[in-house]
């Protein structure tokens, strides 16, 4: 897969919050307006920088939730001991401003021209860049077959729930709920393991492209299992979010 062309120096620009919507009790999507936004590719992220009135600054990185061509949006999960995420998920209102730098990343990106079949493995908020990839697939009218294996603690924690309940043609979404399940749940109810991946993943011979994103332990576990099942490491792309609320 080719790397992205150099786009020149990244600079900070002011972004204004256009609208917010809560995906779950702890996860919020913010739609941002940045007049000089150059566009982005599915899977990329932005760095954001907040400045308090005493000059204190904090920087964080968030994956872009929207597809190329759609308005810029990020989806943020509230971390209990966080400094920035509680502000973004609870305090921020339309009209508020902060700085944004991006788009960033030339490795964890997908576009229809890269082909597939696609295996997307998401742990918690790791679903954000993968959802951007699925939205891009849909916007481009791509027929690359795709499967999203999405691990969440409970049904209430599933981000983009309604959207994922109605996937595009050729997309299959497989949930696993690791901590609690709704009544009459018939899906997976445990952490992703070798058995589950063997059932869900494309055959090795199909030479799938795989993207794994989420907490570091999730990404390491899934990538290791896939390599063990015979998937070549060179067609597995990983993005570790560190320790999150998971």
């Amino acid at each position, binding site marked *: 897969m080719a*790397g*992205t*062309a*150099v*786009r020149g*120096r*990244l600079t900070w620009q002011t972004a204004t919050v256009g609208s917010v919507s809560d995906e779950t009790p702890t996860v919020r999507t913010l739609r941002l307006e940045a007049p000089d936004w150059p566009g982005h590719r599915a899977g990329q*992220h932005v*760095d954001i920088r907040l400045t308090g009135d005493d000059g204190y600054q904090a920087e964080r*990185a968030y994956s872009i939730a929207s597809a190329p061509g759609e308005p810029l949006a990020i989806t943020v999960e509230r971390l209990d001991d966080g400094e920035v995420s509680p502000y973004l998920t609870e305090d921020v209102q339309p009209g508020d401003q902060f700085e944004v*730098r*991006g788009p*960033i*990343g*030339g*490795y*964890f990106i997908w576009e229809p021209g890269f082909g597939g079949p696609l295996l997307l493995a998401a742990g918690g908020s790791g679903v954000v860049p993968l959802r951007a990839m699925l939205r891009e697939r849909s916007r481009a009218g791509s027929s690359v077959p795709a499967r999203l294996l999405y691990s969440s603690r409970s049904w209430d924690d599933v981000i983009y729930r309604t959207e994922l309940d109605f996937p595009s043609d050729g997309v299959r979404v497989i949930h696993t709920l690791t901590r609690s399940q709704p009544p009459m749940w018939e899906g997976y109810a445990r952490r992703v393991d070798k058995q589950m991946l063997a059932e869900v993943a494309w055959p090795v011979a199909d030479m799938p492209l795989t993207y794994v994103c989420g*907490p*570091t*332990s999730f990404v*390491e576990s899934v990538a290791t299992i896939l390599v063990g099942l015979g998937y070549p490491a060179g067609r597995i*792309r*990983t*993005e*570790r*979010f*560190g*320790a999150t609320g998971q």
Partner: protein
Amino acid sequence: MDDNTLDGNAIGGLLAEVFGAEMTTAVSTCGSCGAVTLVAELAVYRPGLGTVVRCRSCDSVLMVFVSLHGTTCTDLMGLASLS
């Protein structure tokens, strides 16, 4: 595996600022063990004092970035090459 560990994706912005270019698809060669890895796949530690990038195979320090007083100090001495 320590859950706080990140990878090169997380510092894409920092690297672009330091090198003036997208670096997550750059190829690094470890000066200690010779392992060849995409920067996006290197192990990244951010304990708040600075950013430490290590080889996944042998854990040697490849790059260190420390920002003090508005300047970023960059140490690439652990790398044999970066292209």
